[in-house]
């Protein structure tokens, strides 16, 4: 499988904010945040088709998200997952002794995972602490 190494940033968007205020289990929140924005050239390099799922892996974990062409332009080499549950599966907790994690500017690899399923917010968070009961 081809893979691409990119620099990841995770920040706010109005779609995320608007959906979050409806509740984090709302489908809008799922749609707004379980995506990864990339430059089309990078997608091509990694053999990723628009609107298919990819596996994003950082030094501290991985997550399945849907790759889309950027809603706000990102240059080649940079990737963006909107702030939220999916992004935080891969955000390194290292703080450079300032208290603030590395939410932006950390290396990830991204590879196609068209057959993998996206997880819901609850599944990811409850699953990570051994509380997830649903979905089996």
């Amino acid at each position, binding site marked *: 499988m081809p893979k691409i190494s990119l620099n990841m*940033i995770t920040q706010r968007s109005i779609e995320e904010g608007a959906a979050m*205020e409806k509740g984090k289990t709302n489908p809008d929140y799922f749609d707004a945040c379980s995506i990864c924005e990339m430059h089309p050239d990078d997608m091509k390099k990694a053999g990723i088709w628009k609107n298919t799922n990819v596996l994003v892996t950082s030094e501290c974990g991985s997550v399945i998200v849907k790759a889309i062409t950027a809603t706000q332009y990102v240059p080649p080499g940079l990737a963006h997952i909107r702030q939220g549950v999916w992004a935080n599966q891969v955000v390194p907790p290292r*703080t450079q002794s300032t*208290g603030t994690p590395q939410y*932006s500017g950390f290396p990830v690899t991204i590879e196609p995972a068209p057959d993998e399923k996206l997880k819901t917010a609850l599944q990811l968070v409850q699953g990570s*602490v051994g509380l997830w009961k649903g979905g089996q």
Partner: protein
Amino acid sequence: MPKLIKGVGCPYCGSSCDDIEVLVSDDETRILEVHNACIIGTNLFHHANDPTRPRLPRQRQPDGSVKEIPYEEAIDYFAKTLLAAKKPLIYGFGSTNCEGMSAVGRIAEKAGAVLDNCATICHGPSFLAMFDNGYPSCTLGEAKNRADVVVFWGCNPMHAHPRHTSRYSIFPRGYFTQKGQMQRTVLCVDPRETDTAKLADHHLMLDQSHDYELFDAFRTVLRGFDIPEVVAGIPREKIKEAAEIMKKAKFCMIFFGMGCTHTDGRNHNIDAAISLTRDLNEHTKCSIMAMRGHYNIAGPGQVWSWQFGFPYCIDLTKGSHAHMNPGETSSIDLAMRDEVDCFVNVGTDAGAHFPIQAVQHLKKHPWITVDPNFCMASEIADLHIPVRIAGVDEPGVVYRMDNVPIQFRAVIKGLPGVPSDEELFDMVYERMCELTNTAPIWLAAKEDRKYPQNPAVI
């Protein structure tokens, strides 16, 4: 007859718009219409109508399920858990009024806790920079009335603060800026071409995580020295042109955001921005402001500074004095180093917004969530205590991103039996005092209701 309430404050982002109009039902229990707010604020007000909003505390059972329990039981558990822990961490306060933040100070002192707020994962580095280099800033009205050059550095108000540009920074017509946007030059520094960058007259699309070098390049140019041909991916000429625009401004306003605080160097990016602001004040008038995320996230910084001398990451375990050193006493570091043994999440969602590894560490110990709604932090908590929503069914003082206090009102009646943050914390405090056989310390001025026999004035 439905009632239209004007001048309502919006409890979402740091813009803390207080020109919202809300139409509420005759019996003041439902929000019918929201005017003037952005899409996010509108959703927030409407979400308060959600009939499934929790009305009772919910405790996790040994089998993983949750059960509703009475408030008395929840308060007792809360108090006992705090007292039993060697070092509890009380974190959050992104969506709480200052009354709640003040009340929690009393608990934290009593519990020997670490008190931290969302700034720790957000604008905490801005505090660090402020400690080191100061903060030449102003209120948002100054930007509105005077600024003819506006710089957005590593922030994206079009998404994160949707009405910021129309109320304060780009479009409004102010006292000396009668022509609004026509009179303003807008610069945007961002590695992405965000919707804010699209609005700007000049977009400096820098290499991600090289803000510090770019700030230094601006400063070097301003002092008349030459710089390399390309700095942080920006050609020298473009840097010189932007520096000249700032220098020639009548009033230059720099707004910065997570693009500076979440990347390499953290506080130093802002530190350099502050140095640039100081330098520009040799040539013109220049101000800088952090784009604070929540409507009252400046609040804990204020309240806890006057109570303990520090805005965040306050370690009260010693009982005799407060200690602060982000990197050590900050929530994420405490979690990752397994330095706390109880976690209280108030008015925020650490479950969703902490890196997942930090959540896993914290989850090794009791986890209490205080929040009006269901969220990730409530769904993994051992105890979830619902409270009223500040700015919706609970009034209170909030501090806007420029530290201007705004007295928010309640627009609807609270759910019956559901306390405010302040009431809940006061009850927990009283319970802690009962359990430890000590007299509660109420400052008379704050706690009017605690002193029914208070002698009248002189």
